[in-house]
């Protein structure tokens, strides 16, 4: 299964190779042109009928993770986060270190040896390290290097009512949707772009947009979902199972109103459930894309993900399917020249 393969692959920002390889294999034969640019962005083009506007659909390939900064004499590994990670979710988790995916764990001081006031404080990054089961720096150096990327170890799992648990749903869910579109859609011209290093500052998207130079773009994302009890409704950014989330505004983009209204209209016409992304926090590749060259129009459509940026992110397969339906409906309007 594609989403399983994509989420179980390691692709921490700057190290997207494994994910890019899977995508390349998947879309080969289904697209008319593929290139990988100087940063590692994968740019695919699908040739169909001539359209008046150039459409680009993007998804970032990278995920948040860690990077080894130091190997202690004890053989324990120190690290820093890559991308936005709540340090509190790191404790007591398994990880995979480096190219060889050396298995390790992030432990914590036993509760028995803590002072009562310690419990109230989050464990700081300088208190955490990865243990791969060796006792010396020499042994560790045979297996890992400073600069190695570290990904969470978390298997793709389906549970509950059509839910999925995995790491890196942000944004392998976008990658999976875009791969499926590239494989299924026929006779429509558009660019499918898989970007690098979104999580460390939207790095890949600018150069990719520069070379594609689109008129309109749709950014596919896994976005924050925090539909917890006892929280005022207006503070809930998105809900699980209420359909694709359409962005209004975030820290990087004020999304084009007309384009957004067209998308909402398409969803309503086709009876596809949708919701607005009701937070202005966070941002995505659109921030770079809509300001590249002379500027262009963008929209973001996301699958809501609970526990985003953690090894146990959760999404709904129903939301995935409805997002895919909406994308196909948008493409068919685009084909008619209605976008």
């Amino acid at each position, binding site marked *: 299964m594609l989403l399983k393969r994509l989420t179980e692959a390691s692709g921490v920002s700057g190290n997207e190779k494994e994910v890019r390889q899977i995508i390349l294999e998947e879309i080969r034969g289904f697209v008319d042109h593929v290139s990988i640019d100087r940063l590692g962005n994968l740019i695919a083009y699908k040739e169909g009928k001539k359209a008046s506007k150039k459409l680009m659909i993007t998804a970032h390939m990278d995920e948040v993770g860690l990077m080894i900064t130091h190997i202690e004499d004890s053989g*324990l590994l120190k690290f820093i986060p890559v991308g936005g990670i709540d340090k509190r979710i790191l*404790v*007591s988790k*398994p990880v995979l270190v480096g190219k060889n995916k050396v298995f390790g764990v992030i432990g914590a001081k036993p*509760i028995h040896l803590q002072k009562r006031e310690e419990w109230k404080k989050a464990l*700081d990054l300088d*208190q955490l390290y990865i243990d791969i089961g060796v006792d010396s720096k020499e042994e560790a150096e045979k297996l890992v290097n400073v600069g190695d990327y570290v990904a969470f170890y978390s298997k793709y799992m389906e*549970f*509950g009512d059509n839910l999925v648990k995995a790491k890196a749903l942000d944004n392998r869910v976008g990658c999976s949707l875009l791969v499926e579109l590239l494989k299924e859609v026929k006779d429509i011209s558009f660019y499918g772009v898989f970007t690098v290093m979104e999580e460390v500052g939207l790095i890949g998207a600018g150069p990719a947009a520069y070379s594609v130079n689109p008129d309109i773009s749709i950014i596919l994302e896994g976005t924050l979902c925090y539909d*917890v009890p006892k929280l005022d409704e207006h503070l809930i950014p998105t809900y699980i199972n209420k359909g694709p989330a359409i962005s209004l505004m975030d820290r990087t983009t004020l999304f084009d109103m007309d384009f957004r209204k067209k998308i909402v209209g398409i969803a309503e016409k086709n009876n596809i459930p949708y919701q607005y992304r009701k937070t202005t926090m966070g941002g995505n590749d659109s921030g770079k894309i809509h300001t590249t060259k002379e500027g262009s129009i963008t929209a973001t459509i996301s699958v809501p993900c609970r526990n985003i940026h953690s090894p146990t992110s959760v999404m709904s397969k129903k939301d995935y399917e409805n997002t895919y339906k909406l994308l196909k409906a948008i493409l068919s309007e685009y084909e008619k020249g209605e976008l």
Partner: protein
Amino acid sequence: MLEVKEFLKILSEGSSISGHEFRLNDIIISTFSDYADHISTDSLGNLIAVKKGKNNSSNIKIMVAAHMDEIGLMVKDIEDNGFIRFTSVGGIDPRTIVGQEVIVHGSEDLFGVIGSKPPHLQEESEVNKAIKIDDMFIDIGYPKELVEKLVKVGDPITINREFKALQGSRFTGKALDDKAGIAALLECIKELSHINHESDVYFVATVQEEVGTRGAFTSTYKINPNIGIAIDVGFGSTPELPKSATIDLGKGPGITIGGNIHPGLREKLVEVAKEYNIPFQIEVSPGPTGTDARAMQITREGVPALCLSIPLRYMHTSVEVVDMKDVKNTAKLLAFFIASITSENLEGLLCY
């Protein structure tokens, strides 16, 4: 015949929070039955496997205990959107359960995750505070109506964690405290089938250690042993912990010394370790230890007690680490010690 690693994997990945240990009964009973003369349970759920000694005319009984229970969580309430609120059973550091996968043991085993707030929505003041258990929830992905059918208040919850090999002979998983101890018991009973021992040996997988060594009290009372030995885990050294409070992984079992431990027997234990070249470390614990040895010592009119600790890192997290060499050396030392006890030397060893 089960390899000790496979046995430990099944135990570690199984679920047995205090008071709900019965889920491990089948695997423990079937594995020990290859070596034991008799296996029974008591009303609290302790499993007792007896291996008879040879020519045990003075009816010496040695009890060896490792606890089969683990720390965990318990269902407290179900929210309107189907999320589950929970409390802890045993010493859980709430900071170690954020973002974990769990199994809710309802009318069926249900996968779930303990949620976390997206970093994007956090305020600066939040990030340095530990999240309280009362503010956490478990998402099993069903609406309330269905959750209420499948899950009842009081159902146990365990962390979902694979038992995995690290480098060398190290392994990681949850609840190796004290399932590594049960694995050592298995190695010991295997060992004893090759060596002569006079004493009847009672291997006990105790219940409810994590909530107050309760299973050890009742099983010790029932067995009424001459010697009681607890096999538990000891704090494995890591750089942030004081050397004085820890023992090193890979350097053999910790032999506890202190008021909970019978001095004569402890000296004999050290002597046996030296005689057979089994590595060991000394673990100092002046008062009652946090192990079944504390219960054994004060049961009935008192039982001379010993405690062997398998060094274990990150105790009470779900990524505990042990070295299999230590498990094997613990078993070996235990077996040779048991074999060294005879009707001729026992009285002398117990004499103050």
